[in-house]
């Protein structure tokens, strides 16, 4: 069974036929994706399924990776944080290093493509040096929230944008003013990945047992890094408001440390302090590849929380909805696109609000199940990789046929 057939089992035959029809309009085009790593991180996760699927759909697609010294990655990590608004200190030499590493990579790259997607800030200067290559058009795919970047870093990145014909952002709210069109393509989840694939009941129970979680009792879950924007203390506060009324309730906070956030360790210390010696609160530090563990936790939760105060797109919300769990989310970022009151969960603004909505979902089991089913179908329609590919193909057709009116292809 090839990849398309495997995905067809999830998205349905008709949807796959539609996707093939759209891809047929781009058959034979040569596309190259360039990013900075083959392993780890959300971009590599996306490209791992996108590249083979585009090939199976008839679009000749390659994946190239730039390389650089540890110092280069230190600088680009700082860029990543600065684009998302965190204060960073960079020297002139850091900007020059970024520029120089892009030049070196461009010299060794042999690109002959109709479209080159440059992912995120790391390889953004490549087009400036790809003179001998035959590239039809460049598209910058920005996966992060660029709405409030640090000025000097943004100016450096903006100066690289002249050769680009388009930029792509995950949400309109994440976009920056640029001279080229700014397409909006939300991210998606891969239903066959370890994090989202169906798992056996035995594996689910084994995971809970290993983590010391009682499978017979109701569980609240938040999966996120331990940083202030994810408000883990607010989640504990909501749990404490409910615990006197729901004695069987358990709370699981699962995540990894925010290595690039100096406050991460401090937040984690505060979380442990707030949790105290309550045996029904589990604070789990999971390694970055604990995808199946997270899968099992999400499938075991009664209600999933993402009580963020500031959020990117919030793919953990998408993952929980796909597993049929209603989500109580902070009203920010991409959570507002996914959590719709009384349909897929509730948007909340405080620990009290979260507690109130959790109580509602605990009390009305049938409504909770119905919202879970709606959330699953909502993700199938809007946030699976089939929609993601459809959006890419639609954008590529628009770039090939510029204009304003409806495009019939």
């Amino acid at each position, binding site marked *: 069974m090839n990849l398309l057939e495997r995905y067809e089992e999830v998205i349905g035959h008709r949807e796959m036929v539609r996707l093939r029809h759209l891809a047929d309009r781009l058959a034979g085009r040569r596309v190259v994706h360039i990013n900075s790593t083959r392993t780890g991180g959300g971009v590599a996760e996306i490209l791992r399924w996108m590249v083979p699927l585009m090939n199976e759909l008839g679009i000749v697609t390659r994946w190239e990776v730039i390389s650089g010294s540890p110092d280069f990655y230190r600088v680009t990590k700082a860029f990543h944080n600065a684009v998302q608004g965190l204060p960073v200190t960079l020297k002139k030499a850091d900007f020059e290093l970024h520029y120089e590493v892009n030049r070196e990579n461009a010299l060794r790259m042999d690109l002959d493509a109709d479209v080159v997607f440059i992912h995120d800030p790391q390889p953004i200067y490549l087009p400036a040096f790809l003179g001998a290559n035959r590239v039809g058009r460049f598209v910058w795919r920005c996966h992060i929230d660029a709405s409030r970047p640090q000025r000097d870093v943004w100016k450096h990145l903006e100066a690289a944008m002249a050769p680009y014909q388009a930029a792509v952002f995950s949400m309109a709210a994440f976009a920056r003013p640029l001279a080229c069109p700014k397409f909006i393509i939300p991210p998606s989840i891969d239903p066959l990945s370890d994090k989202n694939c169906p798992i056996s009941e035995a594996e689910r129970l084994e995971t809970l047992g290993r983590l010391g979680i009682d499978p017979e009792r109701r569980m609240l879950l938040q999966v996120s890094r331990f940083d202030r924007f994810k408000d883990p203390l607010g989640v504990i506060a909501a749990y404490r408001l409910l615990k006197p009324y729901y004695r069987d309730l358990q709370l699981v906070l699962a995540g990894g440390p925010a290595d690039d956030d100096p406050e991460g360790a401090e937040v984690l210390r505060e979380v442990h302090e707030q949790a105290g010696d309550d045996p029904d609160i589990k604070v789990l530090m999971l390694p970055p590849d604990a995808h199946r563990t997270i899968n099992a936790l999400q499938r075991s939760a009664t209600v999933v929380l993402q009580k963020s105060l500031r959020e990117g797109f919030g793919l953990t919300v998408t993952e929980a909805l796909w597993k049929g769990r209603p989500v109580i989310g902070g009203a920010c970022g991409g959570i507002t696109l996914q959590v719709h009151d009384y349909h897929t969960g509730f948007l909340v603004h405080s620990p009290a609000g979260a507690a109130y909505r959790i109580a509602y979902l605990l009390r009305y089991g049938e409504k909770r199940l119905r919202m879970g089913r709606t959330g699953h179908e909502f993700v199938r329609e809007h946030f699976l990789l089939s929609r993601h590919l459809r959006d890419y193909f*639609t954008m590529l057709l628009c770039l090939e046929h510029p204009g304003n009116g409806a495009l019939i292809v």
Partner: protein
Amino acid sequence: MSPMQPFVLFDCGLARCAVGRACSNLRELFEAIRTVPEAVLEHHMMRCALEDYFELNEFPNDLARWCWDGLGDHILGEQIGLIDPYQHPTIEALRATLLNTLEDRLWGMERIPWCRPGMELHLVESRLVAYDTGERVPTPAALAEAIERMSIRSLFYHVHEARRRTGGQTDDFSAWLENVDASPTLVTRLRAIDFYFLNLTQLRQALLQVFQQHLPEPTAALPVNA
């Protein structure tokens, strides 16, 4: 007599682009409606139907939803929710209606409603990309079956977008049925569906109900979950 031409089934998608403008309060919304390109109004008042999933969503367009949910101005949400863009001959005429409604609401207000941070309305324009699916529908009965299983994007293209193409006159289904001499009552009833106030799932059910009343069983049977 020429042989019956089959119905040509299309599907479609939207390429959406940020215009780099957001509204935080009612006055900003008024200014935006006054000055944004027509494609922005078309997206937020018409094409947003393609992004609407929920059967219980009270309002058929983004602007009404944002006034209700974002600004908490329920009166304005109700008023904009009732503005049917397909009853306007041009987008400029729609713009004039929206501006009149917003100005009327703003006129006597002492405090302008604001949204909470994170609930801003980020304006978007879109371009519709449509393509022939290769499917051909030979008869009215087969059309009813096709409507039952076609994507909601196809429904949007053949109903909403068709109304745009024909200046509000007709959808593609009833136009084709008219051409193949189907029952005039069927054609009239299909055109009478208030499609703008239905989401696409509800529209499918409304279309199938009309077919069911005008075509013999069992070809136009309602879907199990209707």
